[in-house]
């Protein structure tokens, strides 16, 4: 290998954090994703849009190794993701599910649990970080000692986001992070994403136009296939796509 080629390989690894190569995924009775190829660049924000059932959640799960592809490859930093120790990879590529799942206990306990995992031990996040994240998301200190069973849906979603941040992810995969929020808390979450998109790689499945405006790239999915990747954010094309897809579903 010549020097130049070596250099280009290294450069390649740095620019694309995650990559899907011709990935297919079969569900129980149907194909969920068909030959999706995709590169997710570092420090960028990607938005995945598409009607329900298009494969958005499956795509995110693949990137977090919670699902393995039926065929094709998932690469993390240029290497087959499966060669990583899964907990180590998942402590860097963290997934935030659409339905916020809370561990039984208080809000603070929920935030501190991921820090106890062996793969997160050197992240050095503590209770002061937890307080800071919660405050940034508009959740007051009085909530810390509250049992999670008493939280509203919107509060849970924000606690789940704060909990994911406790892990200090390099890539955050978020599935519809603003779906259960009232306008005020949506503002908080949106501005959190705006800050995150400057610091880490963010891949978010959402139809929110406000998130769209922040995105560097938009991936349009339909029926398990990648329809289009928009480099420049074209709101009109985005709306048109969603409109056509909705119509297709209704028809």
């Amino acid at each position: 290998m010549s020097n130049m080629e070596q250099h280009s390989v290294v450069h390649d690894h740095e620019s694309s954090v995650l990559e899907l190569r011709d990935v297919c995924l079969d569900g129980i009775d149907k194909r969920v994703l068909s030959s999706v190829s995709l590169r997710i660049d570092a420090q960028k924000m990607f938005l995945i849009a598409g009607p329900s059932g298009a494969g958005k959640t499956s795509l995110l799960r693949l990137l977090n190794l919670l699902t393995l592809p039926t065929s094709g490859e998932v690469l993390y930093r240029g290497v087959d993701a499966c060669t990583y120790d899964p907990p180590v990879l998942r402590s860097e590529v963290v997934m935030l599910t659409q339905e916020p799942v809370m561990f039984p206990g208080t809000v603070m306990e929920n935030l501190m649990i991921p820090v106890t995992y062996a793969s997160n031990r050197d992240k050095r996040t503590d209770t002061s970080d937890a307080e800071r994240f919660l405050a940034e998301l508009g959740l007051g200190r009085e909530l810390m000692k509250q049992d999670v069973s008493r939280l509203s849906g919107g509060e849970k979603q924000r606690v789940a986001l704060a909990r994911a941040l406790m892990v200090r992810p390099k890539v955050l995969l978020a599935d519809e992070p603003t779906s259960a929020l009232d306008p005020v808390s949506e503002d908080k979450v949106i501005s959190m994403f705006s800050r995150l998109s400057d610091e880490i790689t963010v891949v978010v499945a959402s139809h929110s136009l406000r998130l769209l405006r922040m995105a560097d790239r938009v991936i349009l999915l339909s029926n398990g296939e990648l329809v289009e990747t928009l480099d420049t954010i074209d709101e009109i094309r985005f709306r048109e796509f969603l409109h056509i897809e909705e119509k297709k579903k209704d028809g």
Partner: protein
Amino acid sequence: MAENIGLAQMAIAYSLILLVFVLATANRLKINRDLAIAALRMTLQLVAAGILLRYVFRINYWYTSLLLLFAMLFFAVHVVIGRLDLKIPRLTTILFVSMAGGSLVVIAVFIFLVVGRQPWYDAQYVIPIGGMIIGNSMTACALASERFTNEMMTRRQLIETSLALGANFKEASVDAFRGAYRAALLPTIASMTGMGIVHLPGMMTGQILSGVEPLLAVKYQIAIILAIIGAAALSCLLNLYLLRNTLFDRCHQVMYSS
């Protein structure tokens, strides 16, 4: 030695079950069929066991004792597989390894170090003691397997959430593991608590009936209960370790789905 029971006395004992038949029929309880089958099975199985034991005690070879222990283990695995409705790869192997591992170690300790019986394979000791220990580790393994797989299913979302945040499979399933371990040992602990007050254990009763001095019978009973809880705990721990490693794949994902 215990008093002999003649055929006439045996018939009187059986008449007690006739009383149950009469009462069940009078009250239309519809259990006569089940009761008859159960009584018949009990009689045949025990007589067969008696004949077999008499033969094994008489020849008393080391390999007949071991063979019977392994037969009991296989039978125990069979019973558990039948009772659990689980589709888990290699479940038979998992159950056999955990029950055999847990009970054989404890049986060895009991025979060699606690009782110090010579020869060690004396069937009169190995078989009944082995039976009690294997039986209890069977119950513990059945409870542990059932509870653990159940917890893995009901906590699936919690487990996946932990995994998505960087937990390894041990960290993600620690609550399911602890819950199953506790559930499996609870019956043994409960029966230990009530012993001597709520009921006199079977082995002790048997020994006292056959003329053993009560305090010696008590010492045997205490030793066997300790052996039982030891074997149950050991088998159940092995069982849970093996199950946990089977239910997560190389990517630390939950494999089991209903």
